[in-house]
């Protein structure tokens, strides 16, 4: 564990950049959303959701991919094993997800205290989880972050193994599989059943329950890929 921590610290010099870029991009997204809301504000509208958290997810994916592809060749050169590197980056994903969840939790509190920024804009709050207890709420933020960070790491390991071709082929394959699944569902008229199943799940299960096996699947995939990667 000590060794994994030392390997994880290889990312320390990159933290100012990762945090700086992530949260300044979030600030820009927030500002643009706020301007748009100001332009169209009508006090009778109630609370409207934005895609604020989705942009954070996108940024987290990119940051994780870049971090893996930048630091892995160096780690390998410093006699670090691929296993140590993967476990260290997985640990970093957990730490980052928890820290981001805490930040989002605080920002959500500010959001609610200011009456959704004074104009009914839900940017940081999670839909359907208004009455959840703090622990579940934190999990609702942290677990999806864990999923996207491991997706970013997975994309990074694809790059390490097969270069840009590997990433593009992987994405093409994923979109093909998802598209075929959607077609199959339409073909067999199952959308209604799926919608019902989704409605039957609690928001907690959707945000903090089911994503766990998804994160695990990404982690297993990334681990298997990196074990044969060369710098």
């Amino acid at each position, binding site marked *: 564990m000590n060794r994994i921590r030392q*390997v994880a610290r290889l990312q320390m*010099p990159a933290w100012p950049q990762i945090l700086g870029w992530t949260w300044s991009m979030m600030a820009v997204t927030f500002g643009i959303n706020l301007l748009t809301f100001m332009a169209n504000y009508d006090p009778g509208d109630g609370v409207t959701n934005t895609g604020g958290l989705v942009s954070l997810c996108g940024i987290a994916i990119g940051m994780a991919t870049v971090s893996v592809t*930048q630091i892995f060749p160096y780690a390998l*050169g410093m*006699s670090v*094993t691929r*296993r140590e590197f993967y476990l260290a980056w997985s640990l970093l994903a957990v730490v980052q997800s928890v820290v981001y969840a805490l930040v989002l939790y605080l920002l959500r509190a500010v959001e609610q205290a200011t009456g959704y920024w004074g104009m009914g804009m839900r940017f940081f709050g999670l839909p359907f989880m208004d009455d959840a207890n703090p622990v579940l709420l934190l999990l609702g933020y942290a677990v999806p972050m864990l999923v996207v960070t491991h997706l970013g790491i997975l994309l990074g390991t694809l790059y390490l193994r097969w270069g840009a071709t590997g990433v593009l082929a992987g994405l093409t394959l994923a979109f093909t599989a998802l598209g075929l699944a959607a077609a199959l569902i339409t073909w067999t008229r199952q959308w209604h059943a799926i919608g019902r199943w989704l409605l039957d799940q609690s928001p907690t299960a959707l945000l903090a329950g089911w994503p766990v096996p998804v994160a695990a699947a990404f982690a297993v995939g990334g681990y298997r890929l990196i074990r044969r990667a060369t710098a």
Partner: protein
Amino acid sequence: MTAVVTAHGVTKRFGDVTALDDVSFALAEHTIYGLLGRNGAGKTTLMQILTGQAFASSGNVSVFDAPPVENPAVLSKVCFVRESQRYPHVYTVRHVFRTARRLFANWDDTFAHGLAADFQLPAGRLVRRLSRGMLSALGVTVGLAARAPLTFFDEPYLGLDPAARQLFYDRLLADYAGHPRTVVLSTHLIDEVSDLVERVLLIDRGRLLLDEDADDLRGRAVAATGRAEAVDGFAAGRTELHRERLSGLVRSTILGGLGPHAKALAQALNVELEPLSLQQLVVRLTVPPTTTAPADREAAR
């Protein structure tokens, strides 16, 4: 001898290119090796396989009595300074030293900073902004200060000027005396390191050509110069590696030691003998004789 590394039939293929072809050897404890060979001979690939960075297509490698691939116990005793090492975009020289201190058990911080001062490495500069020479100096510093029991230097001299190279050789020898370890130096500047290396591994087109003591190799071949008939007489029954003509005289590179009998024969035939340097021997062994005419090669020199 205590073997630190043993390789048996190591082969590496990239598609239909065979980078390493059935390479077998052992590296002894506390010895400095010269890993010699032309560009593309397979030196870097071999070192990558020995350090678990690349995977052999077939064959067995054992480092400190275990396979090196994904083996933290083995890799903790290994340092591989690669000429083409990539560093993260945001790293400064100081970051490299800090991470090396955490990752190499025997890292000597004082030694590292002394070397950095010798090489005039700017601690605060981004690694990607270093000149080629400074990048080499950074690699050399990490490789020396890590004091790993098995250290590989892959063409560490690239970009270093002669004074900096001499500094590296001096520091290596001095530190080796106090902290003996196994060092593998891959290099083209053979004559520069010929006093440094104790044993030579020569690779050519993926095959191991030589695995011998440097001292034995120095007496391995001679250049015999004289009139054509005299040299023919001297070379009869010996293996001739190379022959060139110089204004009526013939200069022949002949493999084999120089016994008293050979010396007497040379004297009788009025053939002048001079021992071949390690570098000349390597050139003669690895340049295919038909690629350039002797006269062309002479002109190129």
